[in-house]
């Protein structure tokens, strides 16, 4: 494990060792392909039962953590490839200085390292360090452009997330205290796996209170409403490849941490209904609120950010639906990561070309940027769960299970999902097909859109979304995901 961590540390250091802006980008790319590739292959091998790396001590690996690491590594590679193009273009246009490029490529590997640490952490203090590390390593990325809005977004981001993770820490320490009170020693009480093994002797009232604090605290990082206010600001003001990392994997990593405590609390209580109700409540509130904000959205990056609030809400809702729900949210996590990161990459292409994130400021994009527009439209269709997107399968499972256990909340959820689909399609078609009124268009369309690295990455991701979307319904793939979801 220390080898993988060292690669990421070297990747971060290389941003300050390299002299020119080009060297920084190339070294970041090489480290992402080699380091990220090694992590991805190790994770995939572990998912198929071939154990390459020993994870021990304060860290622990199960199938679900390898699954999360695979998502993190995949997004690390794709985001770095897109970043090479994105930062190159922004440097050329003098929007980024060499110092900003250094901070950019210094922070990404440390951010990835923090996420991997949080995913593998068995020791609760290590988990806290990993989660807080994800906030600290991305704060300077949110504030990268040093403009009014980006500084404000970064301030909200660091304050809200740090306070949230602080509250979560109190919840974690309450679990530790419950362990000590039940006769475990301090080291055992800090180990989440040991706490789970001895869940039946832990105090139920302490575990309930601890879970509430963890849900509110780490829920801030997940983006659950009403603690979500940092999310649209941070996602919209960060460079697009970083938004993809934040939305595509960071939210999933934080959600995974919440899920681990949910299952632990369920073991302490003896049944899951108490935590299920909380998760259903937060999940539904997040989806409904996202639907309301998406109805009047004027900024396409904020639109994607609110879509992330919606998807985290959906996953929260799913986690309250028992084993079928957990299977659905596992599938949902994969497709949300692929789709949302592709959409943010493409939104970066739109921003580079149109210089605005305002929906009203973009007209007739299908003619101006035909490749980006086609891919963006496909991504939007995938994110609103149009088949064969795998999100259709996961949402179908969530609604099916929801109608069995929570009829009326599921109906509200379904209505909200319809509103979201309508709003996102409306905003997208307005950007893609609304005709320009003046004659500026004729000047723009003569510049044919060039093929870029971003398009290549987005096509690979969309192919994976539709291919896996079809494969997900086959028995072996479903069994594979069932095994992963059961390992939480």
């Amino acid at each position: 494990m220390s080898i993988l961590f060292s690669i990421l540390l070297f990747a971060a250091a290389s941003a300050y060792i390299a002299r020119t802006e080009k060297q920084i980008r190339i070294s970041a790319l090489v480290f992402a392909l080699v380091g990220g590739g090694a992590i991805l292959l190790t994770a995939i091998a572990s998912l198929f039962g071939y154990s390459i790396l020993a994870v021990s001590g304060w860290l622990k690996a199960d199938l679900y953590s390898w699954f999360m690491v695979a998502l993190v590594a995949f997004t690390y590679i794709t985001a770095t490839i897109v970043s090479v193009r994105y930062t190159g273009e922004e440097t050329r246009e003098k929007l980024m200085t060499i110092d900003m490029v250094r901070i950019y490529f210094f922070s990404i590997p440390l951010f990835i390292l923090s996420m991997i640490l949080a995913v593998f952490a068995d020791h609760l203090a290590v988990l806290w360090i990993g989660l807080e590390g994800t906030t600290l390593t991305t704060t300077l990325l949110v504030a990268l452009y040093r403009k009014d809005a980006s500084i404000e977004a970064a301030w909200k981001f660091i304050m809200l997330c740090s306070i949230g993770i602080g509250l979560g820490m109190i919840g974690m320490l309450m679990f530790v205290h419950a362990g000590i009170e039940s006769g475990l020693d301090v080291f055992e009480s800090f180990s989440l796996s040991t706490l789970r093994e001895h869940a039946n002797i832990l105090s139920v009232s302490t575990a309930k209170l601890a879970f509430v604090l963890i849900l509110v605290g780490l829920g801030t990082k997940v983006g659950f409403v009403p603690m979500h206010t940092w999310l649209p600001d941070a996602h919209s003001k960060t460079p697009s490849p970083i938004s993809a990392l934040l939305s595509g994997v960071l939210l999933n990593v934080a959600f995974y941490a919440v899920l681990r405590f949910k299952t632990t609390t369920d073991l302490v209580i003896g049944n899951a209904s108490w935590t299920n109700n909380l998760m259903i409540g937060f999940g539904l509130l997040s989806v409904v609120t996202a639907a309301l904000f998406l109805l009047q959205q004027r900024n396409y990056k904020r639109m994607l950010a609110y879509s992330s609030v919606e998807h985290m809400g959906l996953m929260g809702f799913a986690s309250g639906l028992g084993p079928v729900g957990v299977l659905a949210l596992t599938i949902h996590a994969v497709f949300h990561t692929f789709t949302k990161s592709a959409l943010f990459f493409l939104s970066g292409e739109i921003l580079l070309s149109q210089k605005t994130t305002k929906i009203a400021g973009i007209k007739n994009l299908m003619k101006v940027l035909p490749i980006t527009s086609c891919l963006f439209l496909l991504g939007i269709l995938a994110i609103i769960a149009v088949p064969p997107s795998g999100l259709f399968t996961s949402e179908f499972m969530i609604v099916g299970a929801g109608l069995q256990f929570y009829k009326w909340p599921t109906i509200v959820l379904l209505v909200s999902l319809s509103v979201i689909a309508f709003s996102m399609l409306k905003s997208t078609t307005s950007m893609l097909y609304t005709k320009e009124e003046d004659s500026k268009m004729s000047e723009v369309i003569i510049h044919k859109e060039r093929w870029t690295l971003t398009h290549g990455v987005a096509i690979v991701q969309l192919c994976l979304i539709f291919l896996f979307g079809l494969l997900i319904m086959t028995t072996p793939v479903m069994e594979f995901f069932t095994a992963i979801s059961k390992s939480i």
Partner: protein
Amino acid sequence: MMTLSLWNNVFIGGTLVFAIVMMGKPRLPAMLRAFALSSLFLAGLIVTSSLAHGEEQPYAIALVNIAFKVILAPWILLYAARKVNASMALKFYLRPTSTYFAALLVLVASVFIAMKLPDVPYLSIALVLLGLLFMIIRKDLYSQIMGFMVMENGIAAYGILMIGGFPFMLETGILFVVITGAILMAILSRHVQELYATGDTESLTELTE
């Protein structure tokens, strides 16, 4: 002869009193001094509480705490403020007298919460709530950072009183993360000061729906 338990109470009292004193301070250096004293008493609490829990060498952890919270954190903030010639006069919604009254109400509320939740120590609840209150009633960035640090002291107090503290490596790791957070907040407050020529949080109103 003072017993360990009596020293414990002195340090708990000192941590709380200086956290409250800090809340009424209208100038940055005075606020930072009060925070440093509160953190110094917390370091004392680490020693007495760890000894009470059977730890033999809690001094290294206490020293690391003093280095990070009593010396480094206040120095970083003061340095950041002086670097941009920020005003040392802090901005607030409540005057100091009203602030102390609000803090008193928080202390009373903490008593009731502690009675309902016997697993959570009074000091921890009070510091977390005081930190949150401080962030609400003050409108300058430095006070917001201090509010967060007081809240963090509350979390540390929970660890000290209920668990007997963390192993040295982890305590250092946690403090390193906290101090990195404080540095980043100081950097951001410097940028805000440069952009708006004020450290007032009311200037941060660009991002609305």
